[in-house]
């Protein structure tokens, strides 16, 4: 307990928000992550690049607690979260989106954004609506506007277009008021204009918000991030500033020939 508190305090001082220590994930014989180390600071804007199957989403799942690593440690704000289930992450200010949208398809856009907030507050066991509820509703509608869904707040999520569902996915992460946001390919399936809007939205986030971004669209990734990490076959193969990554020969080697595929041609 004491050492935990000490670690937490030192993490706070050094501004370190997330530490991954030698994280390994094996699915049967397949090693999706082969000992990844990563440190993310408060206010960091980090983009995660890599070809299909590199292990990016798996890394997200480990950080978010959706899967437990085979070995290694996940430390968030100095607290060892390796064994903690996913539902404790929001209390640490962590929010994520999913590559394949996970929405409440039978509920309206507003209810989706409302529910996203109640989990963290413990309000979801309540049988009565209260003042807090009105606040959540208001914030839900405001967020709908932020992610360009203002005119469909009353529409059932399952009836939204693909692009709108992607936008709602992002809104559900942002509406929780997170300190640490993880976005898994937020630009996939969006039109060129929508991508531009998205970049502007990401750039407009509060400077205190830490952002971890998986993105196949190099343009979006390199503009939104201050730091880039490149993964391949479960390992970190390069990291640096966007400018460094742009000219890194190794990165070019990995992406060579698939550059066109990386730009938008997503399944």
């Amino acid at each position: 307990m004491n050492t935990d508190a000490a670690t937490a305090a030192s993490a706070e001082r050094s501004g370190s928000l997330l530490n991954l220590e030698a994280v390994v994930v094996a699915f049967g014989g397949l090693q999706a992550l082969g000992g990844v180390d990563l440190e993310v600071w408060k206010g960091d804007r980090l983009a995660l690049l890599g070809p299909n199957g590199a292990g990016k989403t798996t890394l997200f799942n480990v950080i978010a607690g959706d899967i437990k690593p085979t070995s290694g440690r996940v430390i968030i704000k100095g607290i060892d979260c390796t064994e903690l289930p996913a539902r404790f992450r929001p209390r640490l200010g962590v929010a994520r989106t999913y590559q394949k949208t996970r929405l409440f398809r039978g509920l309206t856009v507003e209810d989706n954004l409302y529910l996203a907030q109640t989990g963290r507050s413990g309000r979801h066991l309540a049988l009565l609506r209260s003042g807090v509820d009105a606040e959540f509703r208001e914030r839900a509608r405001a967020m709908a506007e932020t992610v360009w869904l203002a005119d469909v707040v009353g529409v059932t999520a399952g009836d939204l277009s693909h692009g709108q569902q992607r936008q709602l996915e992002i809104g559900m992460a942002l509406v929780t008021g997170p300190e640490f946001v993880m976005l898994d390919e937020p630009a996939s399936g969006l039109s060129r204009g929508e991508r531009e809007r998205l970049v502007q939205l990401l750039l407009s986030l509060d400077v205190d918000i830490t952002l971890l971004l998986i993105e196949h669209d190099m343009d979006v990734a390199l503009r939104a991030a201050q730091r880039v990490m490149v993964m391949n076959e479960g390992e970190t193969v390069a990291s640096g500033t966007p400018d460094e990554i742009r000219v890194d020969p190794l990165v070019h080697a990995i992406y060579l020939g698939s550059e066109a595929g990386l730009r938008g041609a997503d399944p």
Partner: protein
Amino acid sequence: MSPTGAAPGRAQSRRTLRRLLSARNVVVAAATALALLLPLFGSNFFVEFVMTRTMILGIAAATIVFLAAYGGMVSLAQYLLAGVAGFMVGNAVVAQDAWSKGLKLGWNPWVAVLFALAVTTAVAFVLGALASRTTGIYFLMITLTYAVIGYYVFGSITPLSGFGGITGIDPPGLFEDHPQRMYLALVVLSVLVYVAFRVLAVTPFGLALQGIRDDPVRMASLGFNVSLHRTLAFTLAGFTAGLAGVFNVWWNGQIDPTSISIGPTLDLLIVAVIGGTLSLEGAWLGAFVFVAANNYLRNLPLVDHIGITEARFNTIVGVLVLLIMILSPDGLAGIIDRIRLGLRRLVQLSRGSGAGPPEAAAGSAP
């Protein structure tokens, strides 16, 4: 902002009124009024047997619909839970000197009701907690296992269930020799259960339950305790099934292990399926069709001619269920919904107005 924003309160209350006066609510209110007035013109048999049974089965089936429509859990344990309440009432109320079986505690019938509901709720909580980590077909299988185990448990613990069951279970004085009162009480209870489930759907608890139905993984990552939530919903449904069970045992005057065997368990599922597992109203509709078929189809003249005996009656019900499911996966409620939409489209066409507003809400929220 916009000038219409000046009186949001009035607009809001008008919207609330419009929502309350939806076609669905008006039909439900009319059906309720009809049910309440029924004793004035219905035959005794119809009121005291057909409709009383309909209300009991309707409440029990509504708990299946509630769990399925809002929680995405198809439970086969609801009839067992009703049976638990029934056995508890039986053991508690039968007097020591009565010619019957069971514990014969001889309690006041209302105390017995509280006791039965408390036990049923506790049992539902435990069973729900054990099943809450599963979904879909696995949840169905676990609850089916509960039903089977429950049958054997009551069958083998004879001090609790008697050999041939507990007989001579009298309802409280309020209902004894007043079957019409019992019927009216069941109508009121049905309305309460129906309204409670529908109101629950828009509370924070109910919305979270629907979120869990749609995507439990997302809910967990948003900080929800998914299995606790499922457990609580199951417990609530268990309590409500217990209410149905109490009336059921009052109405029957007896209960034995066979009455909670796999047959009646599946019958209740059939009731829910006939009505439509996604529509609360469907529970009572399905119950009515099922009970009516049970009571009247047997007496049709052709039944003897083509040799449909008691034993083959289940085949008829089976064919009926199959037909409804082929016509509409959402049961009778789904069929009615489609007719309603079709009529509206006809009206729109005849008015010559082009495309009306899209029916975004249709069939999405139960």
